[in-house]
């Protein structure tokens, strides 16, 4: 009888440990997925990708420079302006107001992009 109860508790403990591990793993997957889906714009080969992005108000967008040369992110209506971004540097801006935001690279003005905030 005693060994029976002991085995039950042992199984319960093992099951609990497995369940906890699964929960923790699941939370980290969800967090990674959330991070992956946070909007970002890659700067590479003298272009912004995606060139046009539509997001909800309150969204923070991150530009990441993957290019070999520095770039900047400057809005045409002066709402936001990054410092010079070297390779792997990032710039983030939170769009709280709805509207269309055109931006460009002040070093390479042919690089243009658009953010549509709904």
């Amino acid at each position, binding site marked *: 009888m005693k060994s029976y109860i002991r085995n039950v508790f042992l199984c319960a403990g093992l099951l609990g440990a497995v369940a906890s591990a699964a929960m923790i793993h699941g939370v980290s997957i969800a967090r990674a997925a959330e991070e992956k889906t946070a909007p970002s714009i890659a700067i590479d*080969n003298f272009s912004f990708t995606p060139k046009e992005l539509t997001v909800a108000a309150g969204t923070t967008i991150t530009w990441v420079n993957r290019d070999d040369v520095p770039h900047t992110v400057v809005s045409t209506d002066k709402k936001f302006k990054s410092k010079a971004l*070297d390779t792997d540097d990032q710039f983030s801006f939170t769009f709280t107001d709805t509207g269309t935001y055109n931006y460009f690279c002040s070093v*390479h003005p042919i690089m243009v992009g658009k953010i549509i905030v709904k």
Partner: protein
Amino acid sequence: MKGFLGTPASFGADLNLIVQVVMGLALIAGALLARAKRYAAHGVCMTTVLFLNLVPIGVVMWPSFEQLVLPRLATHLQKRYYMVAAIHGVLGAAAELLGLLILLVAGTNILPETWRFSRWKLWMRVELALWMSALLSGIGIYVVWYTALWRQ
């Protein structure tokens, strides 16, 4: 404002490139004037280029260098983008300053005797070589900063 040479460069960068090449050619023409013993014309030509160059330095080149290169120069000198800019900066500054020194020595009595030199040809040829080196490195900047040619 977009450039007009078909590269990602700005209008200012494109215009500066053209202006610098034209001024380089003007300096060569000025050297030929001296060879032809037309010293007054030679002086006017060289002085004009020397002073005119202060405008693109102040309006295009120095602001660009200060914003894009200077903040990271100490830690990123090994990167092509920063190295070519640093080389051009050193050569260009040397060429401009030596040119101004030659101008002061040749055209004025402002400088004390110890600062004055007598081997005109030598110093002027050094100046021309420095300026051409600065021009070439400046074209190098344009290629590295604004084209993908060096990536191929």
